[in-house]
């Protein structure tokens, strides 16, 4: 009997050890053993003009990539060594679009896609949002918690560009969109909530502005252009929301005498009230404390 118990316990131990050892290890499909060379960080190609291009592909990225089960040659055509130029932003988006046709088409019609077609290097394309390192080998599935496109992380992903004041100013976007979002009801709820998807039913950037088909805010087709469109967008979550409800949103702007003067003066009034009462409290308690302290806490 005792022998059997020992064997059972030993079996559990081996099984536990085995599952610990293989846990979290998902190896990327590498049918042609590309990584035997490209897994070397020092692998570079030297162009004729002397410039170096790293040909290193980090295996760690590949192993957690959403495309880990498709082979390298699916994207890098059947004879990858004949490809001369590395992909640029436009050709990279095209490459993704060869499978993800619908998303590619939407992106082409978006403000990001329009600018991309004009050769603007600033705009976000597929990998800028879907990969934490803007690296096509490191694209993470949308519903994984560490994906830049996971609901809880989206605001930070957009903020990679949209909280860059200099970059945004060159497009006339002066509102501090990220900061004002994080101060809003939605932003606080997302920030203080957990990563559970059931807790993330709050609006973030894309829920109002759109995702692949994102438009300029003054584009009449934008879901946030004008109070009417905005109200319809609010109504997706806030059943029965009207235009007045939508007007409660200050447009990512701080309240000022020109923009929502009532809100601005409410802010000033409550600040003055709170500051004066709290100062009075501190002064009166300070005086009493000093007096009683010098009395050695007698009356």
């Amino acid at each position: 009997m005792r022998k059997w118990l020992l064997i059972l316990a030993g079996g559990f131990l081996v099984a536990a050890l085995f599952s610990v050892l293989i846990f979290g290890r998902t190896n990327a499909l590498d049918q042609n053993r590309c990584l035997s060379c490209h897994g070397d960080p020092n692998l570079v190609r030297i162009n004729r003009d002397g410039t170096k291009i790293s040909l290193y592909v980090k295996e760690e990225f590949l192993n957690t990539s959403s495309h880990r089960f498709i082979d390298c040659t699916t994207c890098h055509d059947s004879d990858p060594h004949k490809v001369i130029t590395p992909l640029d932003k436009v050709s990279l988006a095209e490459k993704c679009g060869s499978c993800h046709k619908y998303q590619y088409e939407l992106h082409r019609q978006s403000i990001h896609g329009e600018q991309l077609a004009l050769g603007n290097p600033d705009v976000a394309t597929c990998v800028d949002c879907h990969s934490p390192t803007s690296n096509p080998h490191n694209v993470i599935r949308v519903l994984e918690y560490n994906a830049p496109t996971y609901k809880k992380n989206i605001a930070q992903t957009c903020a990679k560009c949209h909280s860059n004041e200099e970059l945004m100013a060159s497009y006339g976007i002066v509102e501090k969109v990220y900061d004002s979002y994080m101060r809003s009801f939605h932003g606080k709820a997302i920030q203080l909530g957990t990563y559970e998807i059931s807790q993330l039913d709050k609006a973030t950037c894309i829920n109002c502005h759109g995702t692949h088909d994102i438009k300029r805010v003054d584009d009449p087709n934008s879901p946030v252009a004008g109070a009417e469109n905005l109200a319809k967008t609010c109504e997706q979550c806030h059943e029965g929301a009207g235009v007045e409800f939508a007007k409660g949103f200050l447009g990512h702007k701080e309240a000022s005498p020109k923009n929502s003067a009532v809100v601005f003066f409410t802010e000033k009034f409550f600040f003055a009230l709170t500051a004066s009462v709290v100062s009075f409290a501190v002064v009166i308690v300070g005086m009493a404390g000093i007096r009683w302290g010098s009395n050695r806490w007698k009356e």
Partner: protein
Amino acid sequence: MERVETVPVSKSVVLEKDIVRFDKHQIIQHIVLFVTFIVLALTGLPLKFHDWSVSQWWIDVWGGIETTRAIHRIAAYIMIADCIYHLFYIGFNTIALKRSFPTKMIPSPGDFKNLFQEIKYFLGFSKERPKFDRFNWREKFDYWAIFWGLPVIGISGFIMAYPVFVTKFLPGWIVPAAIIAHGDEAILAVSWILIVHFFFNHLSPGNFPLNKSIFTGKLSKERYRKDHPLEYERLVGTEEGKE
């Protein structure tokens, strides 16, 4: 339990060692008020200071943002009910039981005189503390602050809890105005309670660590004579008071 409220008062509130200061309704009202107040502050302040990492941790302790939101609303309705209870209690006492209206709580110029007298005493210009009646100026401030604060924080909270409903009748700016009013009023209330109320009722000489009268309803004659001398004299008489 009868309590000291009006002039002339019944001698029955003067016990052997203590004087009855609060009745059971007042004790319950205060307990419900401070329990809901603490719960509301604990579940609400992390939203005001949402970018502090301690807020994130604290929300997780409660079981997530949805839990704190639910608890915050429940506590808010209980607090409002408590205040309605208080108003009914005053109305019932004065109208049905024909007791006189609790005029001692009404602010008067004497409160400002007492405030200046107390400041003079604190600064060492006077050796005498002001002689308070049933309620001193701080107690009146605590009390009336709720008449301002609860409507402000309750109405602004209602606006934030039901924004779609509210904006059917009121302009949209009411919602961003409400979040400001709610947060600032909360800071004001919490600061006042933590600084003034706690200092004078828990840390002041003779009260440390806690003035229990709001829980027992009774205050010792000794403290009554010091803290509310005018009323004490009226109740017990000057001779006994001086001892």
